[in-house]
Structures are given as structure tokens and as C-alpha cells.
């Protein structure tokens, strides 16, 4: 079972998204009331990770991601207000991921809405720092994600990394995230991680305000406890700009751009291209789809998805929806609380 998702941010929204994704994976897309019997669990350490998280911070050239964060936060806060059923703010959301781009195992532990970063083991802490928790002898039992999938004997808990904590610092103009959070209207209870916007230009913040004031969020599907991510992306152009570039018919300039790059290629690239043939075969393993982001059945060399489970493509496309799946998240957090009580007693 391989689940791959990309979140707009690595922090609070990422936690929401991951939690909701795992919930969706467990329960399936169309049968939310009939959960799969068992959570996904890779067969052995080091097996393909269940989830890939790549935060906007790792690719600062994609400012749209940051807007997605903001949009998600606004939707989320709106939904909480509408439903009057906020998730347990302050509870720790635990997400275990491996970053495929770096190969690092990440241990994301986030307080939902608050991040005081003072409680070892429950906050994001730098490995080796005085605040770092001792590695547990056994991976903790999680309701839906098994930590052993992401922490094997070789690169396990020692590789725990934490996102930077620089959002508390003022930017070049003296604005802190709190300032920007206030500017874009993120509720206080969503905490400092909810507005990691230090690189967001103030004009972009104003843009956000203007757009959010003039456009309605997509309707929340209360029955299915999820939103349609594509509605967010495709029908509300104000949230995501379409790609702009040269006239579509002007291919030459783009080709010249590539050709200049090809001039730097190594002598062995011809062989590398040829050697890629086996890799390319797997790309034909799926029936064609005409959807830009659509359902992608698992490849033959991957374990079959569990009953009712999403495929990787579903989750990649549904991550925004996952971020907004408030009631699903609430259920998960309630389950998590129960789980912790079971393991640690009422003080856990």
C-alpha cells in the first residue's frame, strides 16, 4: 500500500491534511461509514513509504503553495465556525512521513493549532537537542499509520528532523507571522504554525484578503465529510492562477531553453536514456485517463490497496480536500485520544 500526498505546508495544515488523508485511506472514498478492516501496514522496514509529504518550504519558487496554505486555513476556520464542532485544538497530531526528495525520515508531531514546542516527544524538536525525546524502544502504536513504515533500524529515530522554527522571527520588514496571521484573518486558535507566511509579500496578503472576501469557499459536503479538491482548484480561479507563459504556439523559445541545457549534458547520458527503458515500462501499467488529476490504479508491482482505500493519485489530488475534512479529522482525533488513554491511562 503506497500512499503519496503532497501538502501545501509542512505544519499545521500539513497535519490536518495528513490526518484526514489517513482517515480517508482507512475508510475509503465512497464508503466512509464502513472502514477498512485493517490499517495499511508495509511488510518490512524500508519498504516504500506510505506517505510523502513535501512542504512548500522546500520549494520556495512555488508561491502558489503558500496561497494554498492560506486558503486551507481560511476554509478550515470557516468550517469550524459553521459546524461549531472544532477539533481538539491543542491535541498533538502525529504524522510519520518520509521525504522522498531527501530520503529523510520525518517525524512530524504537531499540536493541532498550538505548538508550544516545549514538551519533549510531543513537539517538533531538533534531533540531539536537549529537548529531544529519547527514542522509544518500540514505534508507538498509531490509529492509522504505523510508525515502523517510516523508521527502520538504519535510519530510524535518529533521523528525526523538525521544520525550522524561524517563523517566530520577524521578516525583513519587521513583520512576524502573528502580524501576517492577523492580516489574513487566521484565527488565534489555529496557532503560529497556521500562518507561516514570512516570505509572503504584504501585497500578496492583501490579495488574499481581497480574494477571500469576494469568493465563496466551495460547499462542504457534510454527508461525505470531505470537500472536492478539484472544486477548489478548477472552478475558483481566484485561488490558483492558471499557468501563464508564451503563446502556446510559440514553441521555439521553450525548445531553445531546453536545447541550451542539453549542451551541458554528460557524455554518458545516451546510455542513461537507454537504460531508462525498463523504468518507462511501469508508466504504461495503467489504463489511460483523460483527467488531469485522476484515479490511478496501483501499479502491478505494488501491493494492492486495502479495501476501500484511496490510490496514491486520489490522495495526491484529494489532499486539499483532506485538509478540510473537519469532521473526519475530528473523529480521528477522538479515536486518537481514546487510543492514548488506552495506552497511557487518562493522563496520557
Amino acid at each position, binding site marked *: 500500500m503506497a500512499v503519496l500526498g503532497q501538502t501545501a505546508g509542512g505544519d499545521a495544515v500539513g497535519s490536518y491534511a495528513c490526518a484526514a488523508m489517513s482517515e480517508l485511506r482507512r475508510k475509503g472514498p465512497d464508503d466512509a461509514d464502513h472502514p477498512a478492516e485493517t490499517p495499511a501496514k508495509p511488510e518490512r522496514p524500508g519498504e516504500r513509504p506510505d506517505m510523502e509529504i513535501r512542504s512548500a518550504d522546500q520549494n520556495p519558487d512555488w508561491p502558489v503553495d503558500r496561497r494554498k496554505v492560506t486558503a486551507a486555513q481560511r476554509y478550515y476556520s470557516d468550517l469550524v465556525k459553521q459546524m461549531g464542532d472544532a477539533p481538539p485544538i491543542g491535541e498533538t497530531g502525529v504524522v510519520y512521513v518520509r521525504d522522498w526528495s531527501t530520503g529523510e525520515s520525518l517525524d512530524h508531531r504537531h499540536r493541532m493549532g498550538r505548538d508550544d514546542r516545549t514538551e519533549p516527544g510531543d513537539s517538533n524538536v531538533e534531533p540531539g537537542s536537549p529537548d529531544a525525546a529519547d527514542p522509544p524502544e518500540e514505534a508507538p502504536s498509531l490509529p492509522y499509520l504505523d510508525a515502523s513504515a517510516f523508521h527502520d533500524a538504519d535510519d530510524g529515530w535518529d533521523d528525526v528532523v523538525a521544520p525550522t522554527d524561524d517563523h517566530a522571527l520577524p521578516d525583513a520588514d519587521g513583520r512576524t507571522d502573528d502580524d501576517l496571521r492577523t492580516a489574513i484573518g487566521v484565527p488565534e486558535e489555529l496557532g503560529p504554525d497556521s500562518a507561516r507566511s514570512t516570505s509572503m509579500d504584504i501585497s500578496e496578503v492583501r490579495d488574499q484578503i481581497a480574494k477571500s472576501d469576494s469568493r465563496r469557499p466551495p460547499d462542504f459536503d457534510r454527508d461525505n465529510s470531505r470537500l472536492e479538491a478539484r472544486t477548489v482548484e478548477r472552478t475558483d480561479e481566484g485561488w490558483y492562477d492558471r499557468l501563464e507563459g508564451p503563446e502556446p504556439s510559440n514553441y521555439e523559445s521553450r525548445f531553445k531553453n*531546453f536545447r541550451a541545457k542539453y549542451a551541458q549534458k554528460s557524455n554518458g547520458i545516451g546510455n542513461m536514456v537507454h537504460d531508462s527503458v525498463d523504468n518507462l515500462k511501469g508508466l504504461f501499467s495503467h489504463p489511460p485517463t483523460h483527467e488531469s488529476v485522476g484515479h490511478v490504479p496501483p501499479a502491478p508491482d505494488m501491493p494492492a490497496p486495502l479495501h476501500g482505500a484511496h490510490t496514491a493519485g486520489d490522495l495526491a489530488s484529494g489532499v486539499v480536500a483532506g485538509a478540510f475534512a473537519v469532521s473526519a479529522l475530528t473523529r480521528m482525533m477522538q479515536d486518537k485520544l481514546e487510543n492514548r488513554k488506552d495506552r497511557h491511562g487518562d493522563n496520557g
Partner: protein
Amino acid sequence: MAITDDQVALLRTQLRGEFAEYERLYAEFDKSQTDGYIELIGATFILAAERRFRPNGTRPDIIMFVAEVRSKTRAAAESIDPKIGERVLLAALTNEPIDDLDADAVILAQLHLLVAITAAEGLSASEIDALLAKARDIVDRVNS
């Protein structure tokens, strides 16, 4: 140098998923034609990206597509650096600079994503031929 029929035929087999035929043709392929072959990949990649992501494509669409392709097989995940994959797709559509990217990684990402797009789009043999013909024309015009 103009694109040759051999270069077109070789790429056609890859885009059609005819890998046994690819191996046969590659064995006879004049390896000195590799440069032109890579250029043909690049031009075809631009056209395929246009087909896939125009007119309504967004940056998140690109992110998701690359993630989708990488999720298909372990080999794909290992072969395509997500950041490079996203950026070469963006460069194909918007001409954004890719000066800082490794050339070999760019070429490999383009080949994988090109094949992924043609597979995902379910292009017919005639559509692939039309794509290749147009790409060949672009390369020849720029190189002439």
C-alpha cells in the same frame, strides 16, 4: 542537423510502449545521433505538456501530476526528482529558466514525464505520429 527517421522511429516505440521493438531499433541505432534524439524528446515533451496542461492547467496540477507519475512505480519515484520534474514541466509551459538544473536530470525527467503524459492521455498511434511530426518540425526549424 535535421532529425532523422531513425530518431523519430526510436522515440515512437517508447511513446507507444513497444519496448521490444525499441530494443531492436536501438541495437541498430547510430549512437552518434543521440544528440538529435534528445532534442526530439525535448520538443515532443513541450508539445505533450501543452496537450496535458493547457488551457486550464495550474501549478498545483503540475505538482500533482509529477507526484502521480512518481507514485506509479518505485523506479519512477527514483528516476524523477520531484522538484526537477515540476520545473521542467513548468519550463515547457512557461519558459521559466532551468539554468541551475543538472542537464542529465532534466533529460531523464523529460523522458519519463513525456512517456507518462502520452500514456495517461491514451494517445493513439496516429496522435503520437502527429506529435512527433510537429516536434520534428520544431527541432529542424530551430536548428536550421
